[in-house]
Structure formats: C-alpha cells, structure tokens
C-alpha cells in the first residue's frame, strides 16, 4: 500500500473527529499480513526515554541512512535519522530488554539476508504494541522458549559435574583393579592405605568383598566408640535403651561434633558385624532399641510375668515405675509378653492393663 502519507495526530482546520477506535487492524486490500518494518541491521543505537508528567515512556532508535535497495515504504524521505516508539500503555521495559538481547545476538548476521517481505513476520522494532490475542500468544511462546533455554543452560552445569563424577569412579575402579592384579608388587601398607581412602570416599571395597553393606570407616570407628561408651548406661537401665535415649546421651556427652541420627543408626547397625557386645533391635511397632547382647528376652518376659502376677494386673506406667524403665520400653516388653501368650489385655476407659493369661 503506497498511498499512506505522514501526518501529525492533530485535526486540521476542516477536519472533525468522527470516531476513534483502538485495536483496529490494517489490511492491504484483502491481504491481512501487512505491517511496516525496519530491519534491525539498520539500528545503530537505541536508548530509553523515561516517562514524564503527561508523557509516556519512549524508546528512541537511531538508524543508519536508508540503503539504496530499500523496499518501498510509507515515506521515501525523512529529515530525521531516528524514530521514537511511544509506549502509551507501558511494556517498554520488556521491549527494551528484548531489543538489547537481539542487538547483542545479532542473529540476522547468521541467517542469509532475505528480501524483507511484508508478510507479518516484522522484526520487533516494528511492533510497538501487542496486537490482540495473537500478540499475547506470541509473547507466551517467546516466554516459553526463554524458559526452556534457561533450564537447559542451568542443567548444563550439572551434566558436566556428572561427567566428572563418572570419570572419578572409573578412575578409582581401575586403580582398585590394578591393585587386585598386581597384588605382589604393591606393598601391604600402600594397599591398606588406598583401601581406606576408597572406603572413606564411600566407594565399596572390591578387593575384600565385604557383604555387610557399605560400611565406611567413619561408621566403623563410631560403632566402636559407642560400644565403649554405652556399656555403663545400658547396665544401669536394665540392659536396654531406646535409640532416642542413646542419641540424647551420646550427643550430650560429645558436646561438639554432634552425631546425626542417620550416622547413629548406621553405626548401630554395625554392632553385630564388628562383634561388639551390643545389638540394635527393632520391635514390631517400629521402636528401635540398643540392648546388651547378654540381655536375654525370655528372662525379661518371665520376670515381667512374675511382676504382673504379683500385682494382679499392671499398666505400662506402673510396670515402668517398678523396673525403672522408660514407659515406652515397659510397654514394648508387656506387648511382647502378650504376643507370646503369657499376658492378656484389658482395654477400657480406665486405660490399658495387662493380666496374666488365664484363658
């Protein structure tokens, strides 16, 4: 459409405003896809002009002189070499940012220069405002692409880390194999030292093929320490302590360098394999206790039965008080005795009581 002329927005003398309507689309004949465009390669420089009172924010774009082979446009000749885009309804910040990105990327230099075709795909400089739903859709699409790009960038670092980690594991495996092969050449000390390094890094030792889980050096030492430390408290408490009690006791004693619950559990699991006189035991209800190996369950149950028979009946609280145990452990013992058929229960509003099983 070559009949457009520039004009100012004011009404001339013989003109009256008949109607004003936004959101009107311009068709060239029946051709929907017409819009004006300026190739970004023409842009030398651009800057923001902040909004003022009565003035909306603007982006000023300075352009090269028009090239000889420019396609026909609205005005063949203009005295200015810059244009201003006035954002009457904001959006200038995003626009500015995208323009900056495009100018740094200079994507048009990578693609072959094609004749600028006035068919809808105008570069961003031409589009000052989103045009209805199509504009919104385009924005959404761009945002999605942006997000995709960001995510893949972020994970690029991780994938590099994974590659390095794989290399590390391969390396240690190959060294371990070499040790296995050349058993005679490397001295005992070095082998042991290297094995301990492997263990401390958490890589299972392939040479000895221990089957009791991936016991690391730290847990082993910790288990030994616990073995020494817990003997006395356990005997005081009748040979059994809940794991929570152990946790509190140990950490209080340590002061600094506190243990995490996970480390404690892992260390306790190694008691048996390290032939320490302690055992980690899990009840049906999930309660975990540490008990002395010398502690025999049958004895405990038999004595529980005696206690209950003496008193006729007992609740868990009464039993705990009698033995100096914690209520939790007392209940576990009574439940165990019930499971074995020595006791039966009386569940009422008064609470849970245990009687000798007379059935």
């Amino acid at each position, binding site marked *: 459409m070559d009949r457009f002329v520039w004009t100012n927005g004011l009404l001339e003398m013989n003109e009256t405003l008949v109607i004003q309507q936004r959101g009107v689309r311009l068709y060239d004949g029946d051709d929907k896809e017409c819009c004006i465009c300026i190739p970004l390669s023409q842009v030398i420089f651009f800057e923001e002009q902040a909004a003022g009172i009565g003035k909306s924010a603007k982006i000023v774009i300075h352009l090269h002189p028009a090239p000889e082979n420019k396609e026909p446009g609205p005005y063949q000749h203009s005295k200015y070499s810059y244009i201003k885009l006035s954002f009457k309804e904001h959006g200038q910040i995003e626009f500015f940012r995208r323009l900056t990105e495009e100018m740094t990327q200079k994507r048009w230099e990578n693609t072959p220069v094609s004749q600028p075709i006035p068919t809808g795909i105008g570069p961003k400089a031409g589009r000052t405002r989103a045009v209805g739903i199509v504009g919104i859709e385009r924005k959404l699409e761009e945002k999605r692409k942006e997000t995709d790009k960001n995510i893949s960038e972020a994970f690029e670092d991780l994938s590099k880390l994974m590659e390095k980690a794989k290399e590390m594991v391969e390396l240690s495996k190959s060294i371990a194999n070499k040790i296995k092969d050349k058993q005679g050449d490397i001295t005992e000390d070095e082998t042991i030292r290297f094995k301990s390094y492997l263990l401390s890094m958490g890589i299972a030792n392939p040479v000895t093929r221990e089957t009791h889980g991936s016991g690391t050096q730290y847990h082993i030492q910790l288990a030994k320490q616990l073995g020494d430390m817990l003997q006395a408290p356990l005997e005081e408490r009748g040979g059994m302590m809940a794991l929570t009690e152990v946790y509190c006791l140990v950490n209080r004693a340590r002061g600094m360098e506190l243990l995490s619950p996970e480390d404690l559990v892992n260390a306790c699991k190694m008691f048996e394999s390290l032939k320490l006189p302690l055992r980690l035991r899990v009840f049906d209800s999930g309660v975990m206790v540490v008990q002395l190996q010398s502690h025999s369950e049958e004895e405990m149950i038999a004595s529980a039965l005696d206690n209950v028979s003496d008193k006729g009946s007992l609740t868990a609280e009464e039993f705990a008080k009698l033995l100096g145990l914690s209520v939790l452990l007392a209940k576990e013992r009574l439940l165990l005795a*019930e499971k074995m*058929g020595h006791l*039966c229960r*009386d*569940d*009422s509003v008064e609470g849970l009581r245990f*009687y000798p099983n007379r*059935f």
Partner: protein
Amino acid sequence: MSFEWPWQYNFPPFFTLQPNVDTRQKQLAAWCSLVLSYCRHRKLYTLDVLEAQESPVFNNKKIERKLSVEAIQVVFEELRKKGNLEWLDKNKSRCLIMWRRPEEWGKLIYQWALQADGKAEMITMDDGKGVKFF
C-alpha cells in the same frame, strides 16, 4: 435357680477382644458357651443386638466392663459359624439362638417319640428340621 457365671465373667480381659490369636480363640469359645448357656437358662430364643449390649451377659456391672458392639458381632459370627445362631433379618439386628442345634432337637424328639409311641419316622423336610409322627 440363679445363673452360675463362669470364672471368665469376672475377669476384666474377658471383655476386651484379645489381639493374640491363640488367646482370642479361647476367649471366643468361652463367650460362645456363656451365651448359649445363658439363653438356655433364661429360655431365650431370640436376641436383639442393640438390647444385648445392656443384657447382663455382655455387661458386667460389678466389674464395670462390657463387651463392645464390634466384639458382640464377632461373638455372634462365631456362633453362626458353629450353627447355633441364625440371623432373622438382613441388617443383622435380630437373631435366633439355638442353644440346641436343629439336628440335636431332631434326635431328641425322635428318641422321645420312639419311647412314647414306639413308632416314629424321621423325615427330613427342606430345611432339615422336621420329624413326622404317626
């Protein structure tokens, strides 16, 4: 003649459904025989579940213990399996207590008939509860 309660009746755990399987079996057996003997003593032929909760069988006021509704249902189910109970309605709210099972009745009546008349013929009807007399 007043009813003689078994020793379990005054044992509080009797009124709690035992979790231990072996103990529970013994408990349920004791309950079944208690219910049957009580019904026989009081000549009760039907029981209503809601009323049963307040009946002295399931509610021992002296030791302040009573059997829960779920436990009563379990006892009734046990009786039904043994053949001593039949539900009179679909909702299981009313039941027939047979402290003598039909076969036992049949045998008794047959023997009495033989004694009394010398002639009797046992005929089974559809539900196996019939004896025809001559």
